[in-house]
């Protein structure tokens, strides 16, 4: 791999975007490598969760301008489609995916972070969409996921002005869920992921899926879908183990079955 590093630790995968000579800007090669990594991890049942981060003090700057500026319209569509597919793959990943971000979290990089379950950052993080400054627009689902997360007015402000949003403001508007000290960000996020992944993996997966699918349909239909998923939980070993352990006041051992 030329654009990523991957480390497996305690059944968790740590993927780092790694193009340090250009602030981890996103090119076609990185998209394809990410896609193939997430596809492999998806079919690997030993992997319980993914932490996505970037090397050298940055998550990712936007699309690689050296590559993007020469695109024909057809190449632009192929680039955007590949990015959108990657983001959908991350969003639908059947186990938790947390983004641990710092430094630049821009454009395509921010769109990839938005597709994760949620974003954790340190105080150096700066978020923004500079696409309009270059005469284009965010195209990896950013115009759709950002307003759903922070509201339409704030999303328009960020995309229209291209201004950078600092870590505190990002926390306040709900772009980031929690801030950690720069020295311990990766450790803190890793610990949080470890803790999450010690819970019932089937219920984590179902919870993710009903939240994401339910967001696209009306509330009444969504609640019925949730009811059915809830009922399915009661035919799993995880439910018997989880509730049994609670009653017996011991630590549960979930099998994901």
């Amino acid at each position, binding site marked *: 791999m030329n654009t990523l590093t991957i480390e497996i630790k305690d059944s968790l995968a740590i993927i780092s975007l790694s193009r340090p000579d250009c602030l981890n800007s996103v090119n076609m090669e990185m998209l394809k490598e990410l896609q193939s990594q997430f596809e492999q991890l998806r079919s690997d049942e030993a992997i319980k969760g993914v932490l996505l981060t970037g090397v050298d003090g940055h998550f990712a700057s936007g699309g690689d301008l050296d590559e993007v500026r020469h695109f024909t319209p057809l190449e632009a569509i192929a680039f955007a489609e590949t990015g959108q597919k990657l983001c959908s793959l991350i969003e639908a990943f059947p186990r938790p995916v947390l983004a641990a971000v710092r430094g630049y979290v821009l454009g395509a990089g921010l769109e990839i972070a938005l597709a994760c379950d949620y974003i954790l950052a340190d105080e150096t993080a700066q978020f923004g969409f500079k696409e309009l400054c270059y005469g284009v627009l965010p195209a990896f689902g950013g115009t759709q996921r950002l307003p759903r997360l922070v509201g339409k007015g704030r999303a328009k402000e960020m995309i229209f002005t291209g201004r950078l949003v600092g870590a505190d403001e990002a926390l306040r508007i709900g772009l980031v869920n929690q801030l950690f000290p720069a020295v311990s960000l990766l450790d803190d996020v890793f610990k949080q992921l470890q803790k999450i992944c010690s819970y019932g993996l089937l*219920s984590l997966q179902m919870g993710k899926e009903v939240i994401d699918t339910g967001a696209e349909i009306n509330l009444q239909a969504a609640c019925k879908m949730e009811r059915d998923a809830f009922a399915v939980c009661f035919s799993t070993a995880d439910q018997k183990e989880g509730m049994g352990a609670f009653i017996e006041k011991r630590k549960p051992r979930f099998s994901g079955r």
Partner: protein
Amino acid sequence: MDQWQLLHTEIRNRVGYLFLDNDQRFNTLHSECIQELRAALTVLESESAVGCIVITGDPGESFAVGANIAEMRDFTSVEAWDFSQLGQGLFEQIESSTKPVIAALNGITMGGGCDLALACDLRLASERLQIAHPGVKLGIITGFCGTQKLPRLVGSHRAKEIFMTSRAYSAEEALRIKLVEQVFPADQFMNRVSEYAEQIAQQPPMALNLAKKMLNAAENVCIANGQVMELGAFASLFPRSGHMEKIEEFFTKHAN
């Protein structure tokens, strides 16, 4: 009007109170409790002296927690489905009620209790609030609409954090992420809740009812249709339109 076992009700200054009180440390939302809640709500809804309803666990330690785990552990999928259906029925009743329903979160609010709070129109919290959704620790997801209402209230990333980490959030955090609308000091909690609820209960009932209906509908309809519905609701609040006068004129003429 206190024919209930697991709660009691009270009407004061146009506010109908529903106090959860099942005589245990935590108010569990088991089947009987949900059925009683539905019945008691129906009574308060039909009282013309009630303009606004408050559900609370005050002065107990909890607002409400989910179902009884010992009972739930042995549920089959079919029993779980029925239980979910029963709870969702209660929440539909709260949402379709013509009166605003306020959750006054006096303390521990977990699982199904959190879902009950989410079904209400507004959430007022005591500083003592501890709110959590610990389903993944038990190997389940909630079946009481929480996976749908929580992201609609706080956004999908925060909802996923709440479900995935299972951790308890304080009143201050809950306010910051907009999970609750107000936080009041613990020692004045019910007084402040009453003040707040009484102010809402003073509003004209028809306008309150329609505002609630419109705001709930806003979640499910496109903006163009929502605006058409809003026009209709707005116009219906005006007693005598030209059209009504024409109708009256017609009947007056034909009566003579």
